[in-house]
């Protein structure tokens, strides 16, 4: 075995997978996982750990896999992360743990993400229960939103003995894991649902169809429903548009709309009622995971798809694996290109999109070189559908209906080091605090907030209550 190379992992053939929504990556077998785990050098200084947002002891769990102690590996992961099966699939490992892997200096980094996924999947398939639950303490906590942040905070607090209720606006729990990230990257029935079932087993109540700020308010939860604390994990769901002419033509969608119709509403399935519209030629604007997901979804629905991105491939914020898979599947890329206008036909449907070529100028505040338009380089691309994947920001609904809850100029909720907002007893974490980020960061922030809530309640009310 070539120790410089990763143990290859099985994936669905690109020619086949563009015709279905099944998961692309099939995961390691036990033998493959053990072989890959043995590539880990067990470095004393553990550079990978320092680059993990939640500081998972990576060499330790990998050692357990190498020794065939899969259950042990799952327990180690559980000390640090509530969602290893999800993070193993969707974390941007190449810019986190794997970026610093010493193996990666001369060869390929250890497949840390794939090993994490293996251990988590193995534990789930073998019904291993991780984490212990303490005796009930009688305190009530309301968790708003059921994405990675809400799931994590609810799980942690339930294990500590709290009586937790999740309030979710949509009709299915899971947040972006359910409405945004497609089935072919993150299977809903086999990976996401067990996380939700697990919460219910811990005693967490989940009320769907409750929009906080409309159906109830944070004040009514605290004052009328007797919750001792609230955690806001409502994400960053508000889609951005470019503000260019023609953006409201028929055939222009936000990636959120397109993905929600497909994933949450299952429009790709004949037996579901929600319609989805996708033309013959689709332009997806943007270069993040959301853009890749929208592009690959459109491809699977039978379209010819081009991603239009204003910087170069090097700056694409999407996970490398997704870009690689998108290319394999036949998604085209127009780099250094930016739309300036969407042109409609006489009935108000998209007919083409006018773009301008860009070049990279001076670095901007993000440290990436700023794209600047090349004068006179406009050209038209014939497309009948445009999907905008330009990022999202927090929905103002909760902040605008909660007195004293401060947000920054991007609408993100401000929190202290314990995750507490400017309102006493109200905590927040995840995308609603950071703006759209990652699952692992949302998970980490929720853990911090759960610890903050535990401390806050116990300091204020004592260890237990009769209620």
């Amino acid at each position, binding site marked *: 075995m070539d120790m410089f190379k990763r143990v290859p992992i099985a994936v669905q053939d690109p020619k086949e997978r563009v015709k279905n929504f099944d998961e692309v990556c099939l995961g390691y077998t036990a033998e493959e996982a053990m072989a890959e785990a043995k590539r880990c050098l067990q470095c004393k200084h553990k550079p990978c750990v320092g680059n993990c947002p939640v500081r998972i002891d990576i060499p330790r769990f990998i050692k357990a896999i190498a020794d065939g102690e899969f259950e042990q590996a799952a327990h180690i992961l559980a000390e640090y992360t509530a969602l290893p099966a999800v993070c193993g699939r969707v974390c941007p490992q190449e810019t986190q743990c794997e970026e610093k892997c010493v193996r990666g200096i001369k060869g390929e980094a250890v497949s840390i993400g794939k090993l994490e996924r293996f251990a988590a999947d193995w534990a789930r398939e073998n019904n291993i229960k991780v984490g212990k639950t303490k005796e009930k303490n009688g305190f009530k906590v309301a968790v708003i939103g059921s994405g990675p942040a809400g799931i994590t905070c609810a799980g942690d607090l339930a294990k500590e003995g709290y009586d937790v209720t999740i309030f979710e606006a949509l*009709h299915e729990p899971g947040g972006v894991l359910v409405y945004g990230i497609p089935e072919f990257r993150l299977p809903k029935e086999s990976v996401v649902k067990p996380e939700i079932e697990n919460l219910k087993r811990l005693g967490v109540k989940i009320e769907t169809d409750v*929009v906080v700020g*409309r*159906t109830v308010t944070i004040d009514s939860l605290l004052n009328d429903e007797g919750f001792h604390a609230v955690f806001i994990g409502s994400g960053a769901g508000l889609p951005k548009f470019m503000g260019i002419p023609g953006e409201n033509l028929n055939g222009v*969608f*936000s990636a959120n709309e397109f993905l929600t*119709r497909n994933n949450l*509403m299952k429009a790709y399935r004949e037996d579901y009622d929600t*319609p989805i519209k996708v033309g013959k030629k689709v332009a997806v604007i943007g270069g993040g995971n959301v853009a890749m997901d929208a592009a690959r979804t459109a491809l699977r629905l039978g379209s010819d798809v081009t991603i239009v991105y204003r910087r170069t491939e090097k700056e694409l914020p999407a996970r490398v694996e997704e870009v690689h898979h998108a290319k394999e599947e036949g998604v085209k890329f127009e780099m250094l290109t930016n739309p300036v206008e969407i042109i409609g036909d006489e009935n108000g449907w998209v007919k083409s999109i006018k773009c301008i070529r860009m070049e990279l100028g001076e670095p901007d505040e993000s440290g990436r070189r700023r794209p600047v338009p090349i004068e006179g380089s406009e050209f038209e691309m014939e497309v009948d559908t445009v999907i905008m994947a330009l990022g999202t920001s927090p929905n103002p609904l909760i902040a605008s209906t909660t007195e004293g809850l401060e947000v920054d100029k991007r609408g993100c909720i401000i929190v202290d080091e314990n995750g507490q907002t400017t309102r006493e007893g109200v905590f927040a974490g995840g995308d609603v605090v950071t703006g759209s980020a990652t699952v692992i960061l949302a998970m980490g922030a929720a853990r911090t907030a759960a610890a903050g809530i535990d401390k806050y309640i116990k300091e204020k009310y004592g260890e237990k209550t009769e209620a």
Partner: protein
Amino acid sequence: MFEIVEKKFLAPNIVSMDILAPRVANSAKPGQFVIVVADEKGERVPLTICDYDTERGTVKIVIQTIGATTKKIAQLEKGDYLRDFVGPLGRPSDYVNEDLEEVKKRKYLFVAGGVGTAPVYPQAKWFKENGIDVDVIIGAKTKELIILEDKMREVAGNLYVCTDDGSYGFGGMVTAMIEELVENQGKKYDVIVAIGPMIMMKFVCLLTKKYGIKTIVSLNPIMVDGTGMCGACRVNVGGETKFACVDGPEFDGHLVDWDLALQRLAQYKKEEEELAKRGEEKV
């Protein structure tokens, strides 16, 4: 799951249902709507809140059967359940949060077209409860499609009924009725609230613009989540893109780009027709 505790037909294609949804009933205000999912595989459809009873914990919806989903819902019976019922969504009507004394100074005319009569009812009722008389026009294509006439009479100051074919009440469309009131009967209105089919609201606005009477409309674009997450409900108001589900659904009708709104409403026509066909084949 949300129980249907009352169901009755108001017209051959219009059904009224009371849904047990205490949280929604508790928070509902005039002008707001709900999103309903009929069953596991159903789509999310927006429906205006047509009345609410905080004691019983029920919310009334009135549905006109026009496509697959509205037909599916209309077939459910008392004692059946809707899978989901979420709300209240959207902003309440402006006057709900205004100084009552200011509101009292204005003369309101409500213009209800077809099934739009149902959402006008809680608004007229709100005025009645606050001691204000409003005029109401109910219009429909023909007599049998006039709904809620008696209930509306209880809460309206003056009620005017009109039918396109002249089979009942004043013969003519709601716009002709407005002309009659304003031009021939010398009625003065400060605010007109028009709720009905998009095309009706457009023509009411064209007329009232001529009179210079402020006109509020309740837009009903295609929606998915109803919470500001998808942008399917984009409308152009005063040159700005708004999300009807969170910024509306009520807007100043004179600022709405009607042609765009009408065009966007037809976006899923083909898919809707296919679904309706599939539904019929199943039966």
